[in-house]
């Protein structure tokens, strides 16, 4: 499905624009789809025992949008998806609020669930967005482990393309099959950090 037009909605929201969850879930909703998987990344109230007041985000916006679109294309080449929506906030985000939201729809749940995890993991590893964690007694720029691990590749490949191994890649770029199973395996997205900084 979605052979001609890929249904992706990618948005970086300027300061003081909370994420309208309904807008993105409605966007991916479709009568053909039995599943919508979502991920909310929220601001936690503590980090390493320190009280977090808020997070402040900034981005290299045009590049972040390019990277997000690349991630959507990669997800589509790995799973059979209907629509993908990604929103990331900029500026201050208070404790308990959502800073990043991902919604993915598919005919069957496996595709949406796996792709949703892939998208947030890739955002952590390669999209140029930064957050400063503001505590009651100081502040610090956070660093995603997923990015640090990917530095050698990013400096070599010259693109946002995530490291995925594609079996059976007879069609360059997009592998679309009408079945509900991913045709390919993701080699490198496995290790979820047990203690991610904020999501």
């Amino acid at each position, binding site marked *: 499905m979605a052979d001609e037009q890929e249904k992706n909605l990618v948005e970086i929201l300027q300061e003081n624009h909370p994420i309208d969850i309904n807008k993105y879930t409605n966007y991916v909703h479709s009568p053909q789809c039995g599943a919508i998987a979502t991920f909310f990344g929220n601001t936690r109230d503590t980090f390493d025992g320190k009280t977090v007041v808020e997070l402040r985000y900034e981005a290299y916006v045009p590049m972040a949008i390019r990277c997000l679109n690349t991630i959507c294309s990669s997800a589509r080449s790995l799973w059979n998806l209907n629509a993908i929506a990604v929103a990331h906030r900029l500026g201050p985000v208070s404790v308990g609020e959502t800073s990043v939201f991902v919604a993915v729809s598919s005919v069957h749940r496996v595709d949406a669930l796996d792709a949703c995890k892939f998208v947030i993991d890739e955002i952590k590893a390669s999209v140029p967005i*930064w957050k400063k964690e503001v505590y009651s007694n100081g502040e610090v720029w956070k660093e995603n482990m997923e990015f640090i691990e990917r530095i050698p590749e990013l*400096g070599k490949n010259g693109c946002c393309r995530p490291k995925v191994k594609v079996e059976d890649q007879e069609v360059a770029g997009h592998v679309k099959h009408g079945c509900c199973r991913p045709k390919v395996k993701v080699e490198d997205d496995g290790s979820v950090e047990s203690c991610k900084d904020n999501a």
Partner: protein
Amino acid sequence: MGSSLKEEVIKDTPQTESEKESIEIKVLFFARARDLSGVSDMKLEVSSGTTAGECLDKLIAKLPGLKELRGCMVLALNEEYTSESALVKNRDELAIIPPISGG
């Protein structure tokens, strides 16, 4: 520390301004890179044939605070991640990407 080495490499071309075409690129500094350098963007004049990595060395020489990012950062050229060996062209946009932390 890498800067002194690379400066030597650049010298094998004639130093006279007119001999080598000079180009101008725009450099962007984000997050910790901006805090360390004290600027969010600047113009950088280099000779044609300069690589992204050599630009970074020049920047570190100008803005020594950036040195501590060397090794944990990546460069982006015209909104795409790039290798340090990529050549910069006139009016290119080079971005210093310190460790990202989206999500």
